[in-house]
């Protein structure tokens, strides 16, 4: 039996007005996240994975001239049609976010305890003493040693890994239904990365929330995610369970990505596989399938018309004209 869908994104597109005209950063992105699952959102820079996550919380509204299309259904409401006031209640309360740069996401002039308590008092209306108690509890939950002491420390007194733990504590303080983690370990060393990933996995099991993990690192995806969506140039090109993605990738881009990562174990070829060409700019999106100019299997059909994201097996969906059945 499958758990309920807590987030369902349907045909989401986000466009920015810039000096060089309107840029459609993501185009027709559809996916869902169920309770208790970790969805990995992978892709290279500029593929729109971060735009997708920030659109869910509508974080661009104030800073940019932005236009959304499609629907983002969360707890029965369409977030794109929510007034800003209502949206503020969703942010940090129902949906929480952890960013890559923990140092600049924390306010340097307040203690970490203060910052956790802030969230609790705003969203849950807690009293000061009660919030402090909860803050200590949260710090303990994310594995910070002697939390009673740490709660009164400032961000600069903590190491990078500890800061990211604090960020996670803040994010989880209000028991969100959905946690969006945007490259949470990219700035950290491998040994610390391993700890933080273990923590996210552990908390996901304990608290049974949905997690959307945005990363460029396929190895991280392989270790923690249950389902994966691969993005390329503002579109999802493949979506499947984690084993399918690695064992039986359907899209040539997914296949290329997986083959081009240096592996820590197993056979080592002399040369790494490389995907030809480079990611085009958003202003120069190719006709037809967006990956066609770099694709080894591209045909006339690919260059002429964009394929849809279609199911090829039970849970696997692929955006490719050649995706019927086994990969070449």
């Amino acid at each position, binding site marked *: 039996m499958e758990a309920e869908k807590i987030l369902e994104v349907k045909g989401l597109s986000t466009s920015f007005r810039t000096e060089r005209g309107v840029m459609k950063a993501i185009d027709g992105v559809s996916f869902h996240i169920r309770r208790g699952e970790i969805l990995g959102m992978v892709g*290279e*820079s500029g593929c729109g994975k971060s735009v997708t996550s920030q659109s869910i919380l509508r974080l661009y509204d104030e800073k940019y001239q932005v236009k959304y299309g499609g629907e983002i259904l969360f707890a029965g409401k369409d977030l794109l049609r929510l007034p800003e006031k209502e949206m503020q209640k969703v942010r940090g309360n129902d949906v929480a976010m952890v960013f890559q740069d923990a140092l600049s996401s924390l306010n340097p002039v307040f203690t970490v305890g203060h910052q956790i308590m802030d969230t609790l008092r705003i969203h849950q209306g807690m009293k000061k003493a009660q919030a402090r108690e909860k803050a200590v509890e949260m710090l303990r939950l994310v594995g910070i040693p002697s939390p009673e002491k740490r709660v009164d420390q400032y961000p600069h007194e903590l*190491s*990078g*890994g*500890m800061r990211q733990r604090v960020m996670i504590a803040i994010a989880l303080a209000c028991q969100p239904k959905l946690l969006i983690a945007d490259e949470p370990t990219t700035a950290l*060393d*491998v*040994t610390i*990365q*391993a*700890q933080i*990933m*273990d923590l996210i996995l552990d908390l996901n099991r304990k608290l049974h929330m949905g997690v959307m993990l945005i990363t*460029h*690192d*396929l*190895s*991280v995806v*392989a*270790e923690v995610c249950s389902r994966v969506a691969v993005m390329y140039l503002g579109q999802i090109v493949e979506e499947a369970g*984690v*084993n399918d*993605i*690695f064992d039986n990738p359907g899209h040539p881009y997914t296949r*290329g*990505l*997986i083959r*081009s*990562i*240096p*592996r*820590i*174990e*197993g056979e*080592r070829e*002399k*040369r*790494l*596989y*490389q*995907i030809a060409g*480079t*990611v085009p700019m958003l202003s120069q999106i190719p006709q037809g399938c967006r990956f066609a100019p770099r694709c080894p299997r591209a045909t006339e059909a690919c260059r002429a018309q964009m394929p849809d994201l279609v199911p090829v097996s039970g849970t696997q969906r692929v955006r490719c004209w050649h995706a019927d059945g086994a990969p070449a």
Partner: protein
Amino acid sequence: MQANREVVLRAENVKKYFPIRGTLGRVVNNVKAVDGVSLSLLRGETYGLVGETGCGKSTLGRTLIHLTPATAGSITVEGRDLTKLTPKEMRKMRRRVQMVFQDPYTSLDPRQRIGDILLEMLEIQKIGGAGGERRALVMEILDKVGLRPEHFYRFAHEFSGGQRQRVGLARALILNPDLIVCDEPVSALDVSVQSQIINLLLDLQEERGLTYLFISHDMSVIRYTSNRVGVMYLGHLVEEAATDDLFALPMHPYSQVLLSAVPSANPHTKKQRIVLEGDLPSPINPPGGCVFHTRCPYAMGVCEKECPQMQAVMPGHRVACHLHSQQSAKEEPNHGV
């Protein structure tokens, strides 16, 4: 096999301390970024230097090519000690040793065209005649690193990260050096671009017989690029071995931790991780004895008192750890040569 290969660079007991000054410029303490590292780089090989943030790998790379002067120790290139060269001699020596930097965004002057950046390299080292000859050399090197001739007139900000890193590589290559220190050259790049740059580095090495010192925090990248690997922790080289040996049989507890933490790109393998306790100690007051003893799962009494020396435990495999040291001999460190 390695014994008869020519040594391009030999470093002995290199130290790099950054002084911390108190009032009136008095030195009150030192950040011991590199604390007594000895290693040799052999012609045509890639020596991978791996470690976490703050282990001193980048500082060591810069110190080895005298971008920042060593506090102590000797660095020999072509039989000459870099630490004893005059500034003028050193400027000439720069032709032999070059560097590729990590951040492709800040390593190119935003106000210079790519062509001018490369021409200036030749001008500084007085290579080739003015005008036509230098220009031809620049065009040749642009082609070598996979850039097109029209990129000559472009500014850095018009390029993607991967293309900028190609320019950075061209800048190092154009002087035709023996040794290139690559400081995290692919860390800032996307996966698909990363593989392109790694392959380019490997192709150029084969074609020109280059020697690389490849600095990276990424064990998987090191595995693909390097012939030999040195693992650093808190300013010390703790283990050095041929790549396959190190990945198959890491001997230093820290190397084992590092390897076990690397995520595997295979969803079916569930690895047993060794969790490292505590934080990295400060390099201002590193722990006495073995620098790793405060976090080492196998720490013994002797580890607190005595700093283990690098010792060969197998041919070409050196470790600085009391678990593997023979009681009898405290040999001088050899260089795995």
